[in-house]
């Protein structure tokens, strides 16, 4: 151990063991003929935030539900905190917190009552009332669950996942349906969990969420991990910036490529969407505009931007992530 200040110090309370929190190896899950997860592998280090990023139907939820023991793998292996989530479920479940996508609360139960019930399963839970307060639900403690708005139900669900002081939290789409303020409060809670040494595995189809929160991102599509790394690694895999524009699909790019500086890449990742990535400067933009003018090509939405995970996803899959 060195005394040097690390760029990314391990949060206080991080377990000393080097064993990863979650190891998924070649997971396959079929529902009849349909393959939901198709050979997915990932490793979640302890005391970090890990994001599974991908469009709806990519297999994120099935992966989470397999990790928490609600589904049996068709193939491959899953170890969570060193345990088999199905066979050793009784040992595993007191150590994890789970937020599923919807439902899961007695329709007749009141908000505070439900959180206190889930808290009572734990040996040493957080104070349910303070947690409600933190999540802006204190005034709704006596409100029946079915009268809560979708966002309020989401926040209660998050509270139920963390009230038992778990060492590992699974959050499936934790910010769906939240207004911006509640979304930011959820983000701050996830950051606080990480600060206190809790491992978080979350799923999202929001790039900004993964970019802001996650130490590690795995991009999932069609039941497989198609790229993974830190957000920075994924984004800089190509270049820092890019020029993007729309035009009619299938325009030959050879003429454009010949006039671009070395190290610059021009692609059409999706029909009608063109991306030029590399060292973007005013001259490059001018070259692109000149090329368009020569071809009498009227482009739409020409923009110079920082690359995001969204661009990475587009390049990898040829599709936009936003549903």
């Amino acid at each position: 151990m060195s005394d040097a200040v690390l760029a990314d110090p391990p949060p206080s309370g991080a377990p000393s063991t080097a064993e990863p929190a979650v190891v998924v190896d070649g997971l396959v899950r079929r529902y009849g003929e349909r393959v939901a997860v198709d050979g997915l592998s990932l490793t979640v280090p302890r005391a970090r935030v890990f994001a599974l990023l991908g469009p709806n139907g990519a297999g994120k939820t099935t992966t989470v539900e397999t990790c928490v023991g609600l589904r049996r793998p068709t193939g491959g292996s899953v170890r969570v905190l060193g345990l088999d989530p199905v066979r050793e479920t009784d040992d595993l479940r007191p150590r994890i917190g789970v937020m599923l996508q919807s439902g899961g609360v007695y329709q007749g139960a009141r908000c505070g009552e439900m959180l206190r019930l889930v808290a009572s399963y734990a040996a040493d839970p957080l104070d349910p009332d303070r947690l409600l307060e933190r999540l802006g639900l204190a005034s709704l403690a006596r409100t029946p669950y079915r009268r809560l708005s979708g966002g309020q139900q989401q926040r209660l669900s998050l509270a139920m996942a963390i009230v038992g002081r778990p060492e590992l939290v699974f959050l499936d789409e934790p910010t769906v349906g939240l207004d911006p303020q509640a979304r930011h409060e959820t983000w701050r809670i996830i950051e606080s969990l990480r600060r206190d040494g809790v491992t978080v595995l979350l799923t999202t189809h929001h790039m900004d969420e993964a970019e802001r929160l996650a130490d590690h991102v795995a991009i999932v599509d069609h039941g497989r991990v198609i790229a993974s790394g830190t957000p920075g690694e994924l984004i800089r895999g190509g270049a820092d910036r890019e020029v993007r524009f729309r035009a009619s699909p299938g325009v030959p790019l050879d003429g454009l490529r010949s006039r671009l500086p070395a190290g610059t890449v021009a692609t059409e990742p999706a029909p009608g969407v063109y991306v030029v990535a590399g060292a973007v400067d005013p001259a490059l933009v001018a070259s692109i505009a000149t090329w368009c003018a020569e071809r009498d090509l009227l482009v739409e939405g020409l923009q110079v931007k920082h690359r995001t995970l969204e661009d990475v996803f587009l390049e990898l899959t040829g599709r936009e992530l936003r549903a």
Partner: protein
Amino acid sequence: MSATATGRVDPDDGAAMTGVDAGPGTFAPRPGRAPLTRMVANQTRMELVLMMRNAEQVMLSLIVPIGLLVVCTTVSFIEVDGDRADFFVPGILALAIMSAAFTSQAIATGFDRHYGVLKRLGATALPRSVLLGAKTLAVLAIEAMQIVVLCSVGLALGWTPSGEPLTAVLSVVALIALGTAAFCGMAFLLAGTLRAMTTLAAANIIWFVLLGVGGIAFPLSEFGGAQGLFELLPTAALSSGLRTVLADGEVVPWHLLLTLGLWAVVTLTAATATFRWE
């Protein structure tokens, strides 16, 4: 990072804080399962509160049996041999047990499953056996209430239970325990396999049919040749057994306990094999 990928700008991080985070260590992991007895007690109380809060369930388990007992005993539209209260109190007790342990339980469990409660709680520290056990304990608590209320109403209507008290109480407890097991097995069998709305319909229809042919409101002797078949129904076994003990003052016949026991074994085994948590 202040500008997000979608171009929205974060509010100042400090400004929107609700100020209840006690700082570092608030969420420090301290995992562990609560003692089993505490989980059973809390879960049972929750299930009981939810049942008492649900108007339809209170109606089915308490109001309808009390109303039927009063009407059947005081209005002579159904012919019975002997004292009316002596015939109807055991029958209505059997009905009440069926309402709570079968119909209410099936509907509540079916909707818990429909709304993902069973799945969600299956991902907490709560063992599934405790969840189903608590549902059964809550039913037993409701049954205790039903017995007190219905016996009080019966006594007010002139019911005179027969038999030696200790034997009668033991016999009644044995009958109700086996009957509850059989009805809960039926309830879990329906609720664990059918959709919630189908469970709701089926549980109500079966309740109504068994009210008619289960020896509750009509003596089974009125059904002629079908009597032998109907006597195999759990409701009939329970009502006949209760009547034998409470009206005739006799020891409960073994074949009735056997009938209930078989229903319990078969339905609970089938429910265990087929129950789907979501």
